[in-house]
């Protein structure tokens, strides 16, 4: 069945390229872009200092080529923590795909791609989110940056945008109570393709300044001996207009045949560009965040996992953008572990850029 459909898709794609356009502005061209971020992290557990680090967390180069206005290559290579040595630091091919953009309502891509889950996985450049580090939610619940081998179709129609992705699956042996599905990503490293992951997302984009939508993801994640089917449902909304910046995301992961039954989290950001009050032509945005994440929000056993991995966080911070593609950030937060009300204090400084 699959083979028949895939070959029909192939024939149709060949058909599509027979249409030609007048005013064909796109010439074959190489594009280079990138982003990066330097972080200073300070952490205290109670009165005890647990971490002080000055880390060039991510250096990413984007390389693309357009054969014409429909066929293009997009790729992104990322170096994490500046140096790779025996399991420390990471060098990753985060994106590398051939893209066929037929029209606004339909495009196709295959290669190393990003599933469309939440606001940050596909748009993760540092000037685009509040806080020096990505929100806890995008680490503990949705494991950004989530990438892998696969194919997707996407498009926009009447103010809706959609993307449907089929991707390598997750490795269920690497699921843990402390980090949910995060460890299960195969990251395109000789990935098992027995049980593929299916992801569909829809967004409403026609309200000015507002983008909101939801996604559903299913994978019958395979381990050495047992399968753990997981399903991820998430809702996301972002408002950016009239100098107000606000984000809300909420997501749930359901597991079957597993000690962890669900992971659940949400966060809320609210910021205001105060530079607008004095007509200063930069962005100066103080913000607050409340975040609640629990990688083991319901469990089968009687252990305290559902409290041990439940963290609530309150953050205040500031983003300063002298120009829209460079950002200086500072934030301070308190993270409370539900189990024993233990408080971690975090202070971060950051510099990020994109081009």
């Amino acid at each position, binding site marked *: 069945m699959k083979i028949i459909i895939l070959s029909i898709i192939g024939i149709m794609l060949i058909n599509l390229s027979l249409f030609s356009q007048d005013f064909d502005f796109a010439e074959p061209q190489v594009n280079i872009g990138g982003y990066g971020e330097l972080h200073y992290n300070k952490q205290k557990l109670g009165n005890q200092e647990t971490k002080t680090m000055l880390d060039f967390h991510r250096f990413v180069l984007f390389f693309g080529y357009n054969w014409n*206005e429909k066929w293009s290559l997009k790729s992104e290579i990322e170096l994490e923590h500046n140096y790779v040595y025996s399991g420390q630091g990471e060098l990753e091919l985060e994106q590398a795909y051939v893209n066929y953009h037929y029209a606004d309502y339909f495009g196709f891509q295959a290669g190393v791609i990003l599933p469309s889950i939440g606001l940050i996985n596909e748009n993760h450049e540092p000037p685009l989110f509040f806080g020096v580090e990505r929100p806890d939610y995008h680490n503990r619940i949705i494991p950004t940056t989530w990438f892998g081998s696969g194919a997707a179709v996407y498009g926009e129609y009447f103010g809706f945008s959609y993307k449907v992705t089929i991707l390598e699956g997750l490795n269920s042996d690497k699921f843990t109570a402390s980090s949910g599905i995060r460890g299960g990503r195969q990251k395109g490293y000789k990935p098992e393709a027995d049980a593929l992951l299916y992801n569909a997302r829809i967004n409403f984009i026609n309200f000015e300044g507002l983008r909101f939508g939801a996604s559903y993801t299913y994978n019958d994640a395979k381990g050495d001996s047992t399968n753990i089917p997981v399903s991820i449902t998430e809702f996301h909304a972002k408002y950016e207009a009239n100098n107000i910046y606000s984000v809300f995301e909420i997501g749930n992961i359901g597991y079957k045949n597993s000690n962890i039954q669900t992971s659940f989290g949400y966060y809320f950001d609210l910021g205001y560009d105060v530079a607008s009050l004095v007509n200063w032509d930069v962005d100066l945005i103080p913000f607050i965040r409340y975040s609640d994440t629990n990688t083991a929000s319901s469990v089968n056993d009687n252990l305290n996992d559902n409290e041990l991995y439940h963290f609530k966080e309150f953050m205040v911070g500031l983003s300063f953008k002298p120009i829209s593609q460079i950002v200086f950030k500072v934030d301070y937060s308190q993270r409370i572990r539900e189990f024993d009300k233990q408080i971690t204090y975090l202070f971060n400084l950051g510099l990020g850029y994109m081009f």
Partner: protein
Amino acid sequence: MNINKDLALYFIFYLIFISNISFSQQINDEVKDILISTFGKSSTIKFTKYEIEKNAATKIEKQVKQKFYNSAVYYYQIINNDKINGYALLDNVYGKSLPITFLVLFDNAGNIISSQIVKYREQYGGSVKNPQWNEQFIGKNYSSSFEVGKEINSISGATISVNSVTKGIQKLTLLIKEIIENGE
């Protein structure tokens, strides 16, 4: 679970099928439709490929901090009863990697009547096509401010496109001023 797999494949199949039978409108036709629907059927549209004078181009590029896509733009004069009723310029700016083709309509004094994205070629950032977002440019001219985040709202998920289209539109307000002043 096999039902889910098949459903996903059928969905993809359906999308490709739909896109095959849909009609794709050419840029040139689309521009003419827009001009006629704005200025009326009785208008005569005079089209030329307008070569931008080098000094003017450099001056505008410096002010806006964005280069012209090409040495020429597509220039339309809208004529009613032997009088110029308005102008339109079709130009491109780069999004993340591919050109975004956009059209700006001006009254005969060079104030923006409307702007729209005629062709978008990327997966992300297509929200700049939103008519409401484009309405923010109405009435602006060469002397207006075009600050993103201030006069012009940004769009979540379309930061790069918003910045480049905004600059592109500003460039055309400066160019149309030159064109009108030179009586071309």
